[in-house]
């Protein structure tokens, strides 16, 4: 079977002109040169609940070694950042990035009444809700809804994946998910797909059918725009071989070719390390760090690092004390990383976790994750964070 075709034995030929009513005008027809300075946000999700204490290791604190007899990272192995905190040795690739001043570590980020379910806590992080509130839209989705300057384009937010995360879904606007721009371009240029969009004017008054057609037209326009803009770009950079690095390579290609996208979303999963944590997490942190390092250097060499902000989060951290299986169980507050060429506060942003003041064995959060979102929304995406987060959050000074 020829996968390019939606249908086998399709008998349709694309012919005739494309009739579309004004409200569904193809995006190509819109002016695209309205923006001069372009700032990108890249969100990196670590799924499964990354153990923050073995990522940014508090080697200067004895309590850490008491609570983690079998899985603590030894002081002689860590990459020291100051007298208290250090990076996991598998994050060697990020040392250079850190030293360049392209990285900020925000300690103890969380929210009140934390939830330990992966699903629920991810839901909270992606929607930006309170822990007893259920939202059906994501924080980036609501940014798209907010009618920002560029938000009229569906490719304003791209997730490099097969399916779209809740974070990227708004009430009226949604981001677009794609792993391979060429494949999406082929699919939307399939003769059958195109024939569906021809002479299409009769049922557009009907809400839901109109919405389906609008989504198809936007997908087709976006796919053409993304493919045609990015195909000319050839990356010189070398990335490690991993699925995660491939995602970042795609993002870099999009950013460097000048795609007018503001938000990119990628994820790396497997962090739920209840059992034999050291090797598992080590491998993942290595993949993460080497991918990020290649990505940031690639952006730098294309003069895009100053216009890019990368933020990494996980749905929760893990308990301070290890469990009986040389792993860690679901916890609460966790660190976040911010990367970019124009960070205001580089290095470690706030005090290291206080391991002697715990909430029944869990870290207490110092900063609400929505303060981090709020800062990004206000200072990087140029919207009022209260419009997106439903209440105003104080901003931080990392950018």
């Amino acid at each position, binding site marked *: 079977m020829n996968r390019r075709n939606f249908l086998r034995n399709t008998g349709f030929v694309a012919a005739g002109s494309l009739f579309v009513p004004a409200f569904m005008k193809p995006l190509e027809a819109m002016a695209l040169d309205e923006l001069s300075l372009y700032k990108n946000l890249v969100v990196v999700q670590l799924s499964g609940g990354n153990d923050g204490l073995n990522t940014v290791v508090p080697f200067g604190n004895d309590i850490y070694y008491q609570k983690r007899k079998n899985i603590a990272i030894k002081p002689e192995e860590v990459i020291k950042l100051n007298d208290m905190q250090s990076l996991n040795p598998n994050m060697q690739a990020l040392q250079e990035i850190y030293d360049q001043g392209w990285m900020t570590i925000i300690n103890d980020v969380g929210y009140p009444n934390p939830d330990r379910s992966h699903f629920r806590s991810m839901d909270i992080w992606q929607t930006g809700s309170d822990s007893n509130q259920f939202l059906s839209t994501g924080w980036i989705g609501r940014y798209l809804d907010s009618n920002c300057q560029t938000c009229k384009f569906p490719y304003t937010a791209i997730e490099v994946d097969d399916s779209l995360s809740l974070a990227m879904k708004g009430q009226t606007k949604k981001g677009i998910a794609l792993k391979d721009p060429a494949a999406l371009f082929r699919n939307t240029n399939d003769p*059958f797909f195109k024939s569906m969009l021809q002479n299409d004017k009769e049922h557009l008054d009907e809400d839901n*059918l109109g919405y*389906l057609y609008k989504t198809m037209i936007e997908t087709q326009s976006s796919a053409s725009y993304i493919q045609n803009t990015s195909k000319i770009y050839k990356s010189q950079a070398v990335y490690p071989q991993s699925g995660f690095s491939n995602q970042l390579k795609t993002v870099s290609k999009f950013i460097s070719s000048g795609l007018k996208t503001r938000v990119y979303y990628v994820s790396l999963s497997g*962090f739920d390390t209840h*059992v034999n944590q050291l090797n598992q997490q080590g491998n993942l942190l290595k993949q993460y760090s080497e991918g990020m390092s290649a990505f940031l250097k690639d952006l730098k060499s294309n003069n895009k690092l100053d216009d890019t902000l990368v933020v990494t989060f996980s*749905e929760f951290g893990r308990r301070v004390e290890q469990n009986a299986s040389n792993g860690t169980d679901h916890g609460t507050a966790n660190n976040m990383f911010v990367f970019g060429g124009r960070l205001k506060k580089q290095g470690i942003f706030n005090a290291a976790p206080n391991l002697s003041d715990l909430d029944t064995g869990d870290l207490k959060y110092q900063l609400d994750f929505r303060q981090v979102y709020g800062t990004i929304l206000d200072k990087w995406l140029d919207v009022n964070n209260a419009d997106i987060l439903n209440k105003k959050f104080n901003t931080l000074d990392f950018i």
Partner: protein
Amino acid sequence: MSAKDNFSKVKHLYNRAGFGISYPELNKLSKKNISKVVDGLLEEPKKDYAITLVNDTESRRQMLVQSGLYAKKDLTDDEKKMRREIVQMQNKVSRDLNIAWVSKMINTESPLREKMTLFWHGHFACRNNNPMYAQQLNNIQRQHGLGSFRTLLVEVSKSPAMLQYLNNQQNKKGKPNENFARELMELFTLGRGNYTENDIKESARSFTGWSYDKDGAFIFRKTQHDDGTKTFFGKIGNFEGENIIDIILEKPETATFISKKVYKFFVNDNPNDAHIKELADHFYNSKYNISELMRKLFTSEWFYNPENVGTKIKSPAEFLIGLSREFFVTYNKPQVLIQLQSSLGQYLFNPPNVAGWPGGQNWIDSSSLMLRMRIPSLVLNDGEIDFSGKADPEDEAVIALSRIATTNANSNNKPKSYVNAQADWPKFLDTLPKGLSPLALTEFLLQPKLNDKITKMVSDNKGLRSTAVEITSMPEYQLC
């Protein structure tokens, strides 16, 4: 009324109350009065209809071993292995349970009962890693799904799945956990704005002691129950859980809240207040008899109004089950059904949160629509998927483990997955009347009214089979 009108009405009814209808059945039922057809849908099936995939005895044995292992401090390697294996087994049985229900919906002779189960599955949304509890809750929703709403509500509230999911096990005298009480009112009965924070506090006290034992049976733990006086909606008494439920049901707001949700699921995403009031009054006066509510809905003239026909976006479950049912699809590797559900955003037994799936246009984004439009050719023509989807967060631990095994495996080299399904074309074609034209088949398969474009597209078609694949790949097929 013309025969053609009735044909369309029955077709609409079965699209909403079930998962579509075969041509011969439609033909047969079209000769009947609509109210008789509705009666037929509401009739109890004679057979036992519970899902019995999960073996309770075996599950209880595993749970016992499991709780023993969790209580122990230092585990031997063998014990650790055993604990891991139990979790893996439970995950596997959970997936099998999902497939068992999907198969049941595809093959059922009681489509309304399964559709109601699907409705309550989203209304009383719950996740539970223990497949025995998940099956139990699903069977409660099926058994009482067309009966008394009070019985359904009480049974759901007493099920281990829900008690655990909403932390009522931790709701104890002096240390109340309000999670269940809050969701009971916010999401299950009254809706936001119809209660106060104090009502939540007081009702949480009333549910203290509602728990389940090691065999998964409901148990009222007297010693954990707060038997002091509570004030709930202005009433004062030494209330226990069921008293709270009765007081909630006395409030007509509950009938309105449920009727509105039913309306949005079965009729239209955009609520019509007058129609909802008709339903709510009827529901309340029938003492919360769900069958009466559904009879009223399906026999209302407005249910068959053009704005309510062919205008709803199918949920992923409705889409997959309807397609499989229509074309008698066999899935040789039923696991693919889970992959498809997950990629389309409705992995049954795994709702996003206690509020359930938001539904409507939320189902559709560019990637989910593209996939929906490709699935018919994949399933009906046994195509290939180049789509791996995202991991469910609850599967992260499994991924973390399997990563070790495949650290060096290159993710680009993984084989393409095939849907590996077969439609029974001879059987399907056999259901159609002799000499049915491609255009008439199109009219049968699609719920939205045909427009010139589609009419033109299929008018030159020769075969019914290729027409069917084309039609089901159209955006119009996403509506019911």
